[in-house]
């Protein structure tokens, strides 16, 4: 290291100076990206540059899968067919019941004047590969903003919630799975209606209910569903079931471990639910709305009187 060449030939700034420059540039980018999220435009431009390589890299896997699919034995197909048929039967029965219940609920809702819940559009997507980041639980899927995928939409499979779209690029989108350490989802215990927030536990592939009092009304095997109070996840989707509760007198909170209901890290085909988050009426809007209504009523009254 002490053998730096004498400044005899012009070679630009010294390596140490360059290192300081690029390191400070990287640290600045890191801070901007981690704390302020201003770097999304740069990120999407770079991702577009890397996309051709990514799509080519994903191709051999698809090709192999198609070949292996071609050679699937007939007995395996027959077995799968029979199983799917029985599941379809069960599902259609449930769907019939669901339709009846939905109609009834709608009627009741109309009776009490609540807003009707619209059915939301679903986009099927296919997982391309899991994110190349050992620190996080991410999944890259084959549809993006071009197909109407937006950041913030919920992702489900046939059993329950899988995660949420956190970044949407033109061609691909990135799902943060339920089990990611930075992912939180508002849930409700189906049995008691108790509300809580489930956090991903990272590498173990489970969820945790944090900040639940040690005497909270919850027991092993309880089903957790989305509560829908965040406006992101539609209410009533299965999320997880409680598998272990540790109550320690030394802590004010219980440690509650849950197993996700969906095949969070297994599934290849997923559904993205395009729900529009319901906007809360801001005080200003409410004020102007009330004025408008009043004005209309007055005009109406005037018209009636005149």
């Amino acid at each position, binding site marked *: *290291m002490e*053998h730096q060449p004498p400044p005899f030939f012009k*070679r630009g700034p010294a*390596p*140490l100076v*360059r*290192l300081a420059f*690029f*390191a400070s*540039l*990287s*640290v*600045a*980018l*890191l801070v*901007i*990206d*981690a704390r302020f999220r201003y*770097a999304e435009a*740069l*990120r*999407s*431009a*770079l*991702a577009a*540059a*890397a996309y051709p*390589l*990514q799509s*080519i*890299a*994903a191709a*051999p*896997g698809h090709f192999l899968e198609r070949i292996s699919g071609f050679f699937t034995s007939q007995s395996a197909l027959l077995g799968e067919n029979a199983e799917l048929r029985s599941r379809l039967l069960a599902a259609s029965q449930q769907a019939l019941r669901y339709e009846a219940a939905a109609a009834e609920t709608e009627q009741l809702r109309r009776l009490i004047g609540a807003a009707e819940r619209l059915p939301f559009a679903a986009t099927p997507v296919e997982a*391309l*590969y*899991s*994110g*190349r*980041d*050992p*620190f*996080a639980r*991410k999944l*890259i899927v084959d549809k993006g903003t071009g197909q109407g995928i937006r950041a913030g939409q919920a992702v489900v499979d046939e059993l329950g919630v899988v995660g949420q779209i956190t*970044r949407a690029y033109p061609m691909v989108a*990135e799902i943060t799975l339920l089990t990611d*350490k*930075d992912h939180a989802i508002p849930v409700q215990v189906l049995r008691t209606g108790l509300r809580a927030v489930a956090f991903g536990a*990272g*590498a173990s592939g489970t969820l945790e209910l944090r900040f639940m009092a040690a005497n909270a009304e919850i027991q092993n095997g309880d089903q957790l569903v989305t509560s829908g109070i965040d406006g992101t996840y539609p209410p009533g989707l299965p999320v997880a079931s409680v598998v272990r509760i540790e109550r320690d007198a030394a802590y004010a909170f219980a440690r509650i471990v849950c197993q996700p209901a969906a095949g969070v890290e297994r599934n290849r085909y997923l559904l993205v639910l395009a729900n529009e988050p319901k906007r809360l009426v801001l005080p200003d809007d409410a004020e102007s709305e009330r004025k408008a209504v009043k004005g209309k009523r007055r005009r109406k009254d005037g018209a009636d009187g005149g």
Partner: protein
Amino acid sequence: MAVKSEPRPQHILLPVRVTTVVASFALALFVNFLPWRDPALAPDFVALVLAFWCVRQPRLVGLGIGWLLGLLTDAGSGVLLGQHALAYSMLAFGALTLSRRIQWFPMTQQALHVALLLVAAQMVAIVVRMAAGADFPGWRLLVGPLLGAALWPVLTFVLLIPQRRSVEIDKTRPI
């Protein structure tokens, strides 16, 4: 430093072509984007190729290219922007400072030097992520860099093929 053993015969290599360097980086990015089953155990080919060219062509490839490749890797794999950029520019710096030293050693000892560089780069990435709030993902994260260093002799052989071609093209020669 005196070299005790008799120096091995060495090829006189042709000057490197820029297309070779660019193609090797593109190929390394491509291999990194392959759907690896366990990304923690896969060697980082971009880091390896970057270290190679920084050692072999310190005047052509340096910190700037390492930084750009790091940004591409960051965006492509959806991690914190700047994580690999920082790690790769540090790796390039280390490889540049060691470039005159490394080539004196036989292949296995070169691989040891490279293992140190790659592990250091991985540690930089780990420190960055832990500073940003991630959990420590376990020591198996160092398997990738060590595997990468074990690939160093193979990589050296493969990437020097274009420079080992003959100057006079002899049509009658079989190879």
